[in-house]
């Protein structure tokens, strides 16, 4: 008898089945993911997800006897009071016949709940989204590999030939196979020369020397100085270069006009953007700047939780962002993204300053600037806010600026998609 420990066998042996299953259920799973996203909180956003899907495309049908017609007998256990001839009312759904049906996988179920891993969940979210300004991203993407020395191999391009190792091998082989050295040959040739000049010549001695020289030449021909088996090449592994980093600025108006609901909307937008960035960059810094008439950098907690009273000066936030970029995030090393959320209110005379700041200093720094305007749900077309109308002009001219409206959690996801697909077209 053997006992084998299989616990260390490669994990996820069923991965292939899993992938086939997800591919099969793709449409349904995607729907479920979209639904799930609507109800998610920030704290949960970076994890897996339990999804419930319809099993429409996952049926495994087979011929089986129906219940609708015919007669059948079956035996049941646990009789307490019944006598022959008694009638028992059938339970609803004809469950009385269960004794006949042992189908363990419950084909009848319409819904099917299972868990998606974080990766699978996110993949589905971002399935058809692309990062804007792909050029820069690609240049700095963490996938860009860097060669790292990793030992030696026996095959490779000539440029990678490792001379020292190759010669060491060659020498060892030559010694082992007793390849005559150049000096030996020269010595014999010198002796032969001497013999030839000597008078009277000694033909036997000459013949002997010539024979030895021929032999040496033969040996030297058959044992190469450098043989292919001596060759050693440097080997390089391509290791991903962890150079990519991005910073994401979240700008939000927290004046009294921003209600909890509106902030919640904004939060989901930030959340998605953040997720998206973490997928593409190894390190993503997030800077939260909230503003009323003044802007302040805060932590995430107070960014979303605290409310302040006062008016709204958006330019203050832009200035603050500019300052932080200059101080901490040199443009050469960081991909800068900014997302601004507001309800569209601003002091009238601040708008010009905002546009000026954006076009002249902020947009040139950023990969992408997204503005989202959150509204209470209204019927009809929303009234155009002053921020909206001022930003619209920028959006027409600049490719890396986009803006959208949202009024319910369910709007956020489409908004998000549209933002990036729009940028893709523009880029």
């Amino acid at each position, binding site marked *: *008898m*053997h*006992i*084998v*420990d*299989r*616990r260390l*066998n490669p*994990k996820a*042996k*069923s991965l*292939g*089945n899993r*992938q*086939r*299953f*997800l*591919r*099969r259920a793709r449409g349904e799973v995607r729907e479920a993911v979209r639904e799930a996203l609507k109800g998610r909180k920030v704290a949960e956003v970076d994890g897996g997800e*339990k999804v419930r899907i319809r099993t429409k495309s*996952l*049926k*495994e*049908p*087979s*011929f*089986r*006897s*129906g*219940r*609708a*017609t*015919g*007669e*059948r*007998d*079956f*035996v*049941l*256990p*646990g*009789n*307490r009071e*019944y*006598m*022959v*001839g*008694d*009638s*028992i009312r*059938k339970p609803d759904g004809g469950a009385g016949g*269960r*004794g*006949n*049906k*042992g189908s363990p*996988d419950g084909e009848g179920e319409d819904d*099917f709940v*299972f*868990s998606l891993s974080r990766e699978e969940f996110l993949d589905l979210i971002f399935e058809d989204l692309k990062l804007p300004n792909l050029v820069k991203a690609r240049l700095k993407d963490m996938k860009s590999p860097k060669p790292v020395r990793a030992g030696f191999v026996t095959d490779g391009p000539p440029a990678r030939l490792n001379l020292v190792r190759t010669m060491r091998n060659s020498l060892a082989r030559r010694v082992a196979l007793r390849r005559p050295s150049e000096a030996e040959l020269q010595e014999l040739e010198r002796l032969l020369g001497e013999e030839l000049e000597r008078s009277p010549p000694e033909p036997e001695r000459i013949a002997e020397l010539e024979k030895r020289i021929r032999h040496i030449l033969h040996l030297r021909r058959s044992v190469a100085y450098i043989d292919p088996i001596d060759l050693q090449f440097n080997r390089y592994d391509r290791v991903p270069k962890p150079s990519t980093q991005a910073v994401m600025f979240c700008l939000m108006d927290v004046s009294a006009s921003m209600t909890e609901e509106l902030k919640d909307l904004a939060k989901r937008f930030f959340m998605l953007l953040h997720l998206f960035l973490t997928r593409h960059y190894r390190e993503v810094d997030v800077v939260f700047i909230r503003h009323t008439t003044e802007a302040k950098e805060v932590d995430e907690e107070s960014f979303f939780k605290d409310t302040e009273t006062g008016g709204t000066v958006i330019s203050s936030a832009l200035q603050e962002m500019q300052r932080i970029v200059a101080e901490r995030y040199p443009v050469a090393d960081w991909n800068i993204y900014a997302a601004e959320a507001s309800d569209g209110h601003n002091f009238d005379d601040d708008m010009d300053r905002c546009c000026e700041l954006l076009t002249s200093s902020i947009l040139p720094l950023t990969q992408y600037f997204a503005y989202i305007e959150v509204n209470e749900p209204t019927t009809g077309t929303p009234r155009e806010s002053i921020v909206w109308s001022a930003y619209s002009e920028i959006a027409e001219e600049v490719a890396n600026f986009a803006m959208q409206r949202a009024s319910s959690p369910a709007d956020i996801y489409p908004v998000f998609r549209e933002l990036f697909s729009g940028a893709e077209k523009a880029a």
Partner: protein
Amino acid sequence: MAKKLKPRVPRRPLYEGADWTFDLVKEAYDEIERIGVGEMGLDIYPNQIEVITAEQMLDAYASVGMPQMYRHWSFGKHFAREEALYRRGHRALAYELVINSDPCINYIMEENSMTMQVLVMAHAAMGHNHFFKNNYLFKQWTDADSILDYLSFAKRYVAECEERYGIEAVERVLDSAHALMNQGISRHPTRRKARTLAKERQRELQRREYEAETYSDIWRTLPRSAEPREVENKAGESAGKLALPEENILYFLEKSAPKLESWQREIIRIVRMMAQYFYPQRQTKMMNEGCATFVHYEILNRMYDQGLIGEGAMLEFLHSHASVVFQPRFEEPHFSGFNPYALGFAITRDIQRIVEEPTAEDREWFPEIAGSGDALAVIKEAWSDYRDDSFILQFLSPKVMRDFRLFEVHDKSAAPFVNVTAVHDETGYRRLRRALARHYEAAAQDPDLQIADADLAGSRQLVVHHKVRNGVLLDKEAADATLPHLAQLWGFRVRLLEVDGETGKTLKEHEALPMPH
């Protein structure tokens, strides 16, 4: 239970506490084998015990208990479902999994306590193993020594097909073949001699070698004849020449479907082989579990008597044994038919009782075995020569029927009531026994479908008959979902006629065309 009251031989138990180690498992196995083979005379394949994690157990579950199964999305689906149920705590995992192979492979989970490992080894490595090796159905239908090789061949073959023809093309064939799996079984061994799985593998390898040797790229450039050649050869063949009617639909498709490529036929064949391999398991589920449960019960008790396991371990064992053999009443919410462990164990234990301490009733019902003395001999004979239905017909005693409080009901679909037709009394015993045996007849569980006619010369229409028993038609929704799969493999129109078994009247008709893709 009387045994346990005997004075115990003073011996230090093998282990204390719940933790197990490889040495302990080995030591325990040796004792189990000593009792199982030495004392009880079980006849087993050599055992191989493999320790796996819960995840690996789920994995194995999902691919119908076979670790080497080919890839298919349905296994991924089962895994996802099992995993979800398991994570939410709705379902406990099996403690073990055993493969009918030589050597017999037993999977045990690392989470099990030492007592559970002992229980599991007694159950699977002795009980199931003995059953696999000795039951006539397994002997007849499954090749324990080549199943693992065949599985890995099948897996590789399917993977190669996926590479060559695309995952989706392979998936379509597998989906359709899986839908017809229950119709892929030859129930009568005499008609066609079953080829061993090793030969199967050999056959396919040779075929492919030949293909590779004779392959010429030039042929590829020749225009394909519009008419598949096989059809031409077969044109004009009558149903008689095709050996119709044919109950094994997958076999028929593999041999005669006009449009299939050879790799598609091979895949159908693989599915058919799997169906056939699992067929004995379905026919003997109750007996097999009864055998394993009886064996573990016997071995654990003997181990306790010999002082090999302590009182705590014994209590733990009895606790889980009791939950394994629990049979809910028919009205209880979690009732889902007979618990094969409960029924199998009860009947087997009862044989022991009848042989050793028969009552007058037993002498009347079982004159050949009552009081014959050697219970194990009788039981072992039953394990090797019977299957579920015949086992019940032969050995279900009035006492077990009383213990289970069995009753029979008659159900007319149209009526709002079912009628009680037999209870466990003098007049009802035989009727109950017959009815329960019929329920366990594997052939009676699957609807009786047969290929009745195939028009190979003209319309290429395929006609399938469902022989209707007692007016029970096919589930319409299921039939409508399954028939297109048949049409898919056949390649042309398929008609399914539901024909009354007695009157020969056609009660219902379904039709399907192959789906375009």
